[in-house]
């Protein structure tokens, strides 16, 4: 996917002025935050569960090479073919080759963020294949030629009127204004595609090393249709998605839907192992699993490794007050919100996404809800440090930091600056604009200091 994170400030500013978007974002509290909280309350010991989930993901990463090999052996034994892709381009090429070899014409897709990373749809379309997104949200975005703004609810930025207009125009059918009717129309349009597709492409929520299975959590049923009806199933997943055992997956299954949508379980959980067996009446004849690196192995063994624990639930963005105000598009790449503020610099380029790790108040709401306890704020801070080391921050900021650091180590200088600043600010009080603070004064008054500093007053009262 093309990265546009350099335009973060401009897009965030536009998002704040977009009343329709602001209305949509207003739904986040009740639909994500409150629902998650209610679903978590059902569990006897959430902290123990989060610790267990964290340990499972950490263990998988610690012995990732062994689990990947184990996964490959088991999947191959069950009749799947495992492919390894170092980059997004490699993944796209591998999938194109599979499609060519199988004389595929039409491809149905189940929602997959990794394929967004690869811009797989665009690639396959350029290669002449018909690609149909079948998750309702992704389908709407495909019609609208827009990227997702959320990893779980990709079209949360649109309202039903916009979707009604889009369907009316693209489906050439009478306009429907009711949500259930719109869902029904999409079902009618998409069902024939499932029945005539030659290939189904899915992601994977987890790869089970023990059994070589692909595990999918879905609600709509499109994931099941896309992996059952077409004769070829291609699953693509990042190499970090492996978990050791089915029992480990059962533990994670308690947290993933609750964290994502506040469901105790998604409507469907499918564990797919290999191809159609002897005597089976349905299921794909060919299964291919593409394991994608695309920058992941570089994070192993570094301070960024905890990010690889991520199970893509989206709770961090749902609870992020910055995301809640600007939505996902401003982040400019596949993954928005706090997880995107870490992943985008790491996967798509630290120099192309300088704003992202900085556009956080470090309020820690994301860390508090992460099911696998990723220290997102610590990782963002580490990325800020790397930006400084690589000279990616503005010179004003760099000099400002240097001056602050110099002064703070010299108490007399520091006290004098504070004194001067207190008096200056007091004199300027009431102004609605101040040089250097224009971003503050754009929306807020400048507070007036008392006039003398604490240090001065304290010295007066406690003479030596």
């Amino acid at each position, binding site marked *: 996917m093309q990265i546009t994170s350099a335009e973060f400030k401009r897009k965030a500013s536009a998002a704040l002025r977009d009343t329709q978007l602001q209305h949509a974002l207003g739904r986040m509290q009740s*639909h994500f935050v409150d629902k998650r909280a209610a679903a978590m309350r059902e569990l*006897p010991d959430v902290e*123990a*569960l989060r*610790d*267990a989930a964290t340990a499972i993901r950490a*263990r998988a990463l*610690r012995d*990732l*090479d062994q689990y*990947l*090999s184990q996964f490959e052996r088991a999947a191959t034994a*069950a009749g799947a073919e495992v492919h*390894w892709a170092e980059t997004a381009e*490699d993944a796209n090429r591998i999938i194109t080759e599979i499609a060519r070899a199988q004389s595929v014409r039409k491809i149905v897709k189940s929602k997959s963020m990794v394929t967004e990373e690869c811009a797989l749809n665009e690639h396959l379309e350029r290669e002449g294949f018909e690609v149909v997104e*079948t*998750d*309702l949200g992704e389908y*709407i975005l495909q019609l609208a030629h827009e990227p997702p703004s959320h990893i779980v*609810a*990709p*079209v*949360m930025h649109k309202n039903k009127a916009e979707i009604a207009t889009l369907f009316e125009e693209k489906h050439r059918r009478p306009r429907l204004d009711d*949500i259930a009717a*719109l869902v029904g129309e999409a079902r009618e349009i998409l069902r024939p595609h499932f*029945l005539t597709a030659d290939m189904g492409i899915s992601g994977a929520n987890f790869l089970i090393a023990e*059994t070589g299975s692909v595990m999918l959590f879905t*609600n*709509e*049923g*499109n994931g099941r*249709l896309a*992996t*059952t009806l077409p004769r070829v199933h291609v699953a693509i997943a990042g*190499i970090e998605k492996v978990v050791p055992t089915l*029992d480990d997956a*059962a*533990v994670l299954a308690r947290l993933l839907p609750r964290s994502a*949508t506040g469901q*105790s*379980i998604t*409507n*469907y*959980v*499918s*564990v797919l*192992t290999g191809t*159609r*067996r*002897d*005597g*089976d*009446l*349905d*299921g794909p004849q060919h299964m291919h699993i593409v394991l994608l*690196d695309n920058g992941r*192995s*570089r994070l*192993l063994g*570094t301070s960024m490794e905890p990010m690889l624990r991520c199970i893509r639930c989206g709770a961090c963005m749902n609870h992020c007050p910055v995301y809640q105000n600007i939505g996902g598009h401003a982040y400019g790449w596949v993954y928005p919100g706090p997880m995107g503020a870490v992943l985008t610099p790491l996967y798509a380029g630290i120099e192309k996404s300088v704003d992202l790790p900085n556009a956080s108040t470090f309020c820690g709401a994301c860390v508090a809800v992460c099911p696998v306890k990723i220290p997102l704020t610590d990782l963002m801070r580490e990325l800020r440090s790397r930006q400084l080391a690589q000279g990616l921050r503005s010179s004003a900021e760099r000099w400002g930091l240097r001056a602050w650091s110099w002064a703070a180590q010299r108490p007399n200088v520091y006290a004098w600056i504070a004194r001067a600043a207190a008096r200056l600010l007091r004199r300027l009080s009431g102004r609605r604009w101040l040089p250097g603070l224009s971003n503050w004064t754009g929306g807020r008054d400048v507070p007036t200091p008392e006039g003398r500093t604490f240090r001065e007053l304290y010295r007066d009262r406690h003479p030596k």
Partner: protein
Amino acid sequence: MSARDRILARVADAQTVNRHAYADGQRRYQAPAPASDLAPLFGERATRLGSEVLRVEDLLEVPAAVARYLATYRLAPRAVCWPELIALPWSRARLEVEARAARDDDAVGLTGAFCAIAETGTLMLLSGPQTPATVSLLPDIHIAVLGAANIVATMEVAWARVRARHGALPRAVNFVSGPSRTADVEQTVTLGAHGPRAVSIILVGN
């Protein structure tokens, strides 16, 4: 060197640092303790997620229960079923039932269930020659026949049962927790996205 070898080599290299970084022996998560009577818990959870739960005493009563259900919803007395279930006396209940994989025009699909999970109100279906996956997927209505004795507490127990009975996994294990749904439009939950619009569970025995 292949892509596979290069990726695995990078992973292994990073892990020479890494393997010592974690303390092992973290406490294993203990799944919530099972209630003594799982059927009511299962029924309550399944209903909450939008499944309908009907009860019959005996397996032979299932066809009549299905016929009544179809009549209530004014559906034609026709269905596709898992081959495993074809021996039930369907014709006595005046039902036209075919054992095969499902097709697009099937309105009703009849399946059994390998087991069910009380914790979440979930059916566990295993694919196989006698239990094709499409029957619970393509029809608008999915009716599942579940023996009350086959309700287990958690997904972990269900996995143990699969290992004990079958050793390896079938091609597809599908956990089903109610009718298909989407909340993609304005986060409003709407039933009947791409899969069945209704799921009905006929619980057999006590």
